[in-house]
């Protein structure tokens, strides 16, 4: 399994999760976990995904998620899970 963390931050609107999930499905990326909250009208979401069978490379994934974010009006970042594990787990 090759885990990555996708974070979405921005103004809440209709269909954010739907659009992100549709994109991920199209790229053969499996979603393992989703957490989401709204803080003062701001949408915060974190997804843990498995990219081991995705049909593209990490750079393209990251760029395409970035552009999708611009379309929706939110910021989308995709990072390898390792960096968070290293920082927060001994």
């Amino acid at each position, binding site marked *: 399994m090759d885990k990555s963390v996708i974070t979405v931050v921005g103004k809440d609107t209709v269909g954010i999760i739907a659009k992100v999930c549709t994109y991920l499905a199209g790229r053969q990326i499996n979603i393992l976990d989703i957490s989401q909250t709204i803080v003062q009208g701001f949408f915060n979401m974190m997804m843990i995904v498995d990219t081991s069978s995705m049909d593209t490379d990490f*750079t393209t994934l990251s760029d395409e998620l970035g552009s999708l974010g611009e379309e929706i009006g939110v910021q989308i970042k995709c*990072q*390898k899970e390792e960096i968070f594990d*290293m*920082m*927060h787990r001994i």
Partner: protein
Amino acid sequence: MINMKEVFETNAMVEKENLDVRTITMGISLLDCAGGDVDTVCKKIAEKIKRYAGNLAGTAEGIAREFGIPIVNKRVSVTPIALVGASCCKSPADYLKIALTLDRTASEIGINFLGGFSAIVSKGMTESDRMMIESIPEVLAQTQIICSSVNVGSTKTGINMDAVRLMGHIVKETAVKTADRDSFGCAKLVVLCNAPDDNPFMAGAFHGVTEADAIINVGVSGPGVVKYALEKVHGKSFEVLCETIKKTAFKITRVGQAVAQEASRRLGVPFGIIDLSLAPTPAIGDSVADILQEIGLEKAGAPGTTAALALLNDQVKKGGVMASSYVGGLSGAFIPVSEDQGMIEAAECGALCIEKLEAMTCVCSVGLDMIAIPGDTPDSTISGIIADEAAIGMVNQKTTAVRIIPVIGKGVGDTVEFGGLLGHAPIMPVNRFGCEEFISREGRIPAPIHSFKN
């Protein structure tokens, strides 16, 4: 599994608190490039650097993107060139030839700096060392991204005062040769005592002879992250203060460790060390001086500064050591003046003087760094400043360094702009009393008594 709070904490460190990996530095041994003909040596040097570090910049950018952590600089450090060139360089012009090769090669592979135009003359100088040192002003004037360093002393050997005297002159000549660029050449030249073999930070980086053929060293940063963490425990006890710095240093260092391991794996070069440094930049909120202020000082340089810095330096090391499998380099808090907005302000308002900075260097990671002084400062005074710093390093068994810029044509009251990570600085006054006779003495200062541990 990782939770949302942790993920957002990490990303806030990057987006709001200037967390970054300051440098991935690949150390490359050039010992096997030595030979009798300077052109052949240059050819071998270019080939070897390209072979090892050809993909360094691209690999670092890939890692930065995947981890979401900026990697600000990609650098290479090489074996001190005085060793590599000893058998083929018959004049300073031959050393210049090697330097131009290094500069060209470094540009071709897209790195930010290359360090190691260096000589280790802690006890004595060979003829070749001297020629190499004499070539430094011309080299720094003609190259763009080469950094030069000279180690003039150590706890084990004492201080080579002949080299100290020579370096006062070389610093000044470098300033003169780059006078049209506000004596910028001196920003790429550092005089060290107890220089480490595995330092990834410029201008003092070189690949020591104790190292393997190639190695990956990583320098972390993150003064902003420490400052933001301390804001949350404002006014609390020293225990809480120290614990907070340690925990934050741990997290920052883990990022460096992750990046270093990944870079090592992808480049097929062994991981060397993490340098646990708080390296400031001129960006707002990325300042060591701001941390000192958050600890409780009105300005960096106020009474209490040395104690606060000692505490900070020690807690950074304590927190960072457990986060990495190997630590080394300079490790600690850096206090460059021009590269730290808080230090610049402290110098401008008169809170910080060179003498206080000197005291601070007794308890932090390096030395007098990026300090602009009047262009008419005598060579012997510069040597005196170097000797003082070297003495602090020698006696306290720590690395010290002097990177000082006598800005030709400028005096106290003027400012100088270096740009980028090097920032800007006010010209600071230097003690006007001389030390000419002291510096004119020949020979070396013996090693201190506590160096005899056998």
